[in-house]
């Protein structure tokens, strides 16, 4: 089930809301959330629900064993390693085995049959959440969860289940047992949800129209300008798609009394690639930093080892997005920029005006998104070639090839404005508790929700990009 589809908006959400607030007891309220989360997942993946239940069970049992063997470091470590290997193995089998076998066949000329395993929705997200619990437990940062259903609620909680943000157990550990739901939080959560919905339904889907037309059209028709327009449009699409989902998740969490950490902070105003990664998919970047980069030694190692660490982390970051070579390349591309900025470029950027730094970052981010988009290297090189070797655009030809490209073009400037941090006055108005400001704010969100509902009911195109991760 997706947040931007009628079954969620008209069915799932109001029913869960009513059932949840019908109880005044924490246990029952958690029960409602858990049952709802399982239905939410089973709506799209009824058979693969078992996999999530088992993965949670592995973490639960591993946690109990680690606690039981607390006095024996070797046994405790063994329990930890086995749990992590099982969870990572699970992710490998379901996400990467097809890819590994296909490439082994290619490399060794073998004929191993492809397993044809279906990728379960959200497996990368929930596996990383479970791993964060297991690792934090091993490090002594969180207490063991003795109630399987509470652990399952953490893993399966529907707002963040299938497309993040990657919520750490320690963020919600306390709120699972004790939290306070208020009317103001519910209203604020709804407003946040509507903002996310609008990002997805209006901007992500709107810019997607341009991307689809150009990247799936005849390359001979489109010149350099249109390929740059498509790259910018895709950068906007993926941002509004994913940050919109995060907004909706954070808003839904807040309605039910949970406070998730922010996942995006206006990434396209970043002044460097390093800065971009402090603002983009923060929960994933910090996950890799805390659970891979730092355990590898971080930057407190030799220069060579540090370079290797960065490349390992960014290679894995790329592969986390999908079992395709372009994702690996995209991760390494980002890793190399981070290295270059730390070693050389950073000093140059420090001396440049902020606007130039932002332009630099935006330019290389947009190029990276082209790498991210194309699984097929031939098409990727062709698109990059179109962008970097000037070819005039036959505008009439563009219009003739698919006039709906114009429809997509309309949303690009809108997206470019919306991606910027709002002006202070507007932000203050949005945060104001004054009755008139609050009423105006609510009315604006109601109107925005109305526009979204009209689009959702009328059109069927709204798959989330981050689902496949």
């Amino acid at each position, binding site marked *: 089930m997706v947040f931007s589809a009628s079954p969620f908006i008209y069915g799932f959400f109001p029913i869960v809301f009513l059932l949840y607030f019908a109880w005044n007891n924490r246990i029952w309220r958690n029960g409602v959330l858990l049952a709802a989360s399982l239905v939410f997942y089973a709506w799209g993946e009824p058979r693969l629900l078992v996999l999530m239940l088992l993965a949670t069970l592995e973490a639960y049992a591993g946690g109990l064993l680690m606690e039981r063997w607390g006095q024996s470091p070797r046994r405790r470590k063994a329990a930890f390693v086995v749990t992590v290997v099982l969870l990572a193995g699970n992710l490998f089998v379901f996400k990467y085995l097809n890819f590994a076998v296909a490439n082994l066949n290619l490399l060794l000329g073998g004929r191993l049959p492809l397993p044809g395993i279906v990728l379960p929705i959200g497996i990368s997200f929930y596996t990383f959440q479970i791993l964060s619990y297991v690792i934090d437990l091993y490090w002594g940062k969180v207490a063991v969860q003795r109630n399987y259903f509470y652990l399952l609620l953490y893993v399966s909680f529907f707002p963040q289940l299938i497309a993040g943000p990657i919520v750490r157990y320690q963020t919600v550990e306390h709120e699972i047992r004790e939290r306070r739901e208020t009317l103001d939080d519910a209203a604020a959560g709804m407003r946040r949800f509507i903002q996310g919905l609008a990002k997805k339904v209006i901007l992500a889907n709107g810019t997607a129209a341009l991307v689809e037309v150009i990247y799936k059209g005849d390359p001979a028709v489109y010149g350099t300008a249109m390929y740059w327009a498509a790259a910018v449009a895709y950068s906007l699409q993926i941002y509004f798609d994913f940050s919109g989902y995060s907004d909706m998740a954070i808003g839904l969490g807040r309605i039910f009394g949970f406070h998730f950490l922010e996942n995006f902070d206006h990434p396209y105003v970043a002044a460097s690639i390093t800065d971009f990664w402090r603002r983009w998919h923060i929960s994933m970047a910090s996950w890799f930093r805390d659970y891979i980069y730092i355990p590898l030694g971080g930057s407190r190692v030799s220069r060579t080892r540090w370079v290797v660490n960065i490349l390992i982390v960014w290679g894995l970051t790329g592969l986390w997005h999908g079992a395709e070579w372009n994702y690996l390349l995209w991760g390494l591309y980002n890793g190399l920029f981070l290295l270059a900025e730390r070693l050389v470029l950073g000093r140059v950027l420090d001396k440049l005006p902020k606007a130039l730094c932002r332009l630099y970052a935006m330019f290389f981010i947009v190029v990276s998104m082209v790498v991210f988009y194309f699984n097929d290297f031939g098409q990727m090189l062709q698109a990059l070639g179109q962008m970097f070797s000037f070819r005039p655009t036959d505008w*009439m030809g563009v219009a003739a*090839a698919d*006039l709906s490209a114009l*429809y997509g073009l309309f949303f690009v400037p809108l997206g470019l404005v919306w991606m910027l941090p709002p002006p202070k006055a507007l932000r203050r108005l949005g945060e104001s508790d004054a*009755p008139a400001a609050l009423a105006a704010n609510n009315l604006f969100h*109601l109107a925005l929700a109305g526009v979204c509902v009209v689009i959702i009911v009328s059109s069927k195109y709204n798959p989330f990009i981050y689902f496949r991760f």
Partner: protein
Amino acid sequence: MAKKAINAVFAGGILLLLLAGLARTVFFPKEINYLEQRYAEQIAPLTAESWLDGSFQDSVDKALSDQVQLSETYKKTYNTVSSRFLKAVSAPILSQCRDRYVNIAGTLMFNDNIVYAPFTLEEVAPSLDAKAENFNEYFAAHQELDFYVYYLERDIDLDFETGERMGAREYFFDRLDLPEDRTACLHVDSFEDFSARYLRTDHHWNYAGAYQGYTELVKLLEVDEPPLAPQGGPVEVGTLYGSRSTGMTSAFSETFYAYRFDYPDMEVTDNGYPAADYGSQKEFLSGGADQLTYGGFYGWDEGEVRFDTNRPERENLLILGESYDNAVVKLLASHFNNTYAVDLRNYEPHLGKDFQFSDYVEEHDITKVLLIGCMTYFRMDEFTLEG
């Protein structure tokens, strides 16, 4: 306190609106989607199987889109806004793109017409071969009958940009075991030919094309009387949003014209039931009908329509066709005793029995059989003769 009240109205209002949509869908679903002229989607029964195969979930999604309050208004608004926007931005481009195909989200335009892309002969030859073989079997088996084939050339038969003909009609006629004078076609050799004979926003022919077809059919069928003449020139019936005017192109419309005819008296039977008329030409021409469509005006694709002029001295005609013949069957029926217009796609669904050709012609004392349609009719399996 004021803050709480404002937030309560906001959150409660949203919740109530959503619950009202759900309640309407589950407990009080409507049967017809009038905007899209079809049955409205309903929620399928929930079973383990329907959940596992996803059909229940799909049905909920579709049902909500059809059933929630104001859903038709939402869709109409959305289509109007998006298509008006597209029309506004496309107008200058379309005027610059004369004599070339323009693609609008999968819908093709050529000048002011919404059109289909031409097929290549390689694409269509196998299915035309199969249909010709099927027809030839019946020509051979029923030598007592006079068979006629009328082919409507249209946008799919030639490339308007290059003027290249696909040659499907010639290819098909070459394979028919019929004398040359038993076949004819509505000849379209250029975009000008096409736009003069076909509607701009609909895939069907217009009043001029249909009348030309009728006069050619009168000749083809060796009717020994002149065709009915229209009473005066074409009459403006109303604004038509044709079959191709949907989604992004729904802002495109045209003025629908028709000829007025003085039809002879005839009894009409629609799928076995007596009917006042076939189509609503009189009502539309007198301004007493709305929701103008090609089918609404001329008549829908019924399994079987029978026209009886009660002139036993004349022959009985069987017309096996598709929607194109809707515009001419009543005209043709004026020249025969009994005329049976059968649409093989709908015969079994509407009459509850299979169409058996040999039994049918014998039972209804048919002497002439007209096979009429455009390229798709001569390709589609649904129009294969059986029995």
